[in-house]
């Protein structure tokens, strides 16, 4: 018995290693590039021979990147907060109340989750130009909220369904008002779900490229993924590779931190929200 379990463990261990290598190689590679000096950049080695922080100094010294970083953070945070608040309201209604149009709402959000975003690019481009939203923060925040809402609604209603609502009754029996029952009992229980949803929505907004490149035209509202792609042609860098990689690493760090600290929550959020039934 002991023998077979050891063998099984080794086998699983090898598979684990394969997965880890597969998942991490591209990330490590771009990190490695970001630490290379211009001289060694094109040596094709996976591990830098000379380490430097020069690339990071360069990007943080330019407005182009810093401005984009501010845009990215600001836009993603605002969109996340709004999407989670609106999503929480809708998810509460879906998981706890009975009302006409509930299934329509579920259906609509499902449709939007599958909607080809590029189909919106042309009309939104034109509409936002007319409304003066083109190349502004709200011009990106609005479509982000829209496409984050289905995700938020699914994830949150899955979480809300797991909350033991008996506790609300118990709190009332213990002498709480409706408000106290919500604040002191339900809200602390709902917080992890809200937090997980916020992470997922933030990742979604943070990652977007199509809207960001179509609906912006200047540094005023360009986000980092877009700014990255413009580094390529920009003349102020002789060879943009090192700068692109450094910038790429900077916007990857928060994602890696989220994943490291909240792996369990993200997995449960994604799986419960995405597949119900």
């Amino acid at each position, binding site marked *: 018995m002991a023998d077979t379990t050891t063998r099984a463990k080794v086998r699983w261990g090898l598979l684990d290693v394969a997965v880890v290598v597969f998942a991490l190689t591209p990330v490590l590679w771009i990190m490695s590039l970001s630490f290379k000096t211009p001289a060694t950049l094109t040596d094709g080695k996976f591990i830098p021979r000379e380490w430097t922080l020069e690339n990071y100094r360069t990007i943080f010294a330019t407005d182009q990147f810093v401005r984009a970083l501010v845009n990215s953070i600001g836009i993603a945070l605002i969109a996340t907060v709004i999407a989670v608040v609106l999503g929480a309201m809708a998810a509460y209604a879906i998981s706890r109340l009975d009302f006409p149009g509930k299934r329509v709402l579920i259906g609509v959000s499902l449709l939007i989750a*599958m909607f080809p975003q590029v189909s919106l690019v042309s009309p939104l481009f034109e509409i936002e130009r007319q409304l003066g939203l083109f190349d502004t923060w709200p011009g990106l925040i609005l479509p982000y909220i829209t496409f984050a809402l289905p995700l938020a609604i699914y994830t949150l209603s899955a979480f809300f369904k797991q909350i033991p609502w008996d506790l609300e009754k118990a709190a009332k029996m213990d002498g709480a008002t409706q408000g106290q029952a919500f604040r002191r009992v339900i809200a602390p229980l709902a917080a992890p779900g809200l937090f997980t949803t916020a992470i997922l929505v933030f990742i979604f907004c943070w990652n977007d490229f199509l809207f960001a490149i179509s609906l912006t035209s200047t540094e005023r509202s360009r986000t980092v993924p877009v700014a990255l792609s413009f580094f390529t042609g920009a003349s102020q860098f002789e060879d943009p590779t090192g700068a692109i990689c450094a910038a790429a690493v900077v916007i990857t760090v928060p994602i890696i931190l989220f994943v490291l600290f909240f792996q369990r929550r993200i997995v449960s959020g994604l799986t419960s929200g995405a597949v119900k039934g």
Partner: protein
Amino acid sequence: MSVNATPAGADVAADGTETGGGRQAAVPAQRTRRRGKVPLSENKRAERKLGLLLCAPAALVMLAVTAYPILYSVWLSLQRYDLRFPAEREFIGLQNYVTVLTNEFWWTAFGVTMLITVVTVAVELVLGMGLALIMHRTLVGRGIVRTSALIPYGIVTVVAAFSWRYAWTPGTGYLANLFSDGAPLTERASSLAIIMLAEIWKTTPFMALLLMAGLALVPEDLLKAASTDGATAWQRFTKVMLPVMKPAILVALLFRTLDAFRVFDNIYVLTAGANETSSVSMIAYNNLIRGLNLGIGSTMSVLIFITVAIIAFIFVKLFGTAAPGSDDGERR
């Protein structure tokens, strides 16, 4: 006949956790649901009003940003409308559709998109299933595996695309000299292969997570029962796990197919559509932002929308994919 033999709520808290739903064991099923949701307010109208009120903001935003623009885009697609020549704007009926549908670039892009969709989704299904099994059943390092699998999912697509691009760039990359001494990103076949590789790397974890949720639905006892009935590991997988997981697999396929059809970021960074590697999203973007041709761009938007709708329809009708959430309120 022993009347008292059924422990009430035996299904509740069997795992020792607080579940809370079991109290209603003593109430008929059809009433339980309603009451479970609204313990105090029996006023149906107030409940409806509150429900609609809570959903209204989300619904309005979603409709305002999708339904109205898509209709607007249908309207735009019926016009000659090029921002470089705004004076020539006029209603031309379906002529834009004729232009696009007789254009070989469109069909090439369409073919590329379909190819990428079919190949990546197929590969992802196999790899994703493997990864799901590893994440679900591994004996060692489950946390590490799950954490590292999440990184491709979370990482910005453009960042990953740059990583792949530099990996295959001659001189810079560690992979560039792997196959031939040429530059892989300057040839069509190898470019497409790299685009697909990047797509697969990025989205297999998502597929795996969806499938893992399906795996979790397979009761452990069912697998044990199959073992004692003499099923081999492969038979357990195909005869027990796959049938139970079928709904989850179909949902994962639907989501991933439609997602793959939207492929844009990777192509933009890796080849920018050179050597006939444009996808439909790429070509629509180029017509709109680079070409500033709103009429043609909108026509492509509408065509893409229709294609996606057809794919979704096929999934739902032919395979009976139960849309997630569509059964809300029926079960549980």
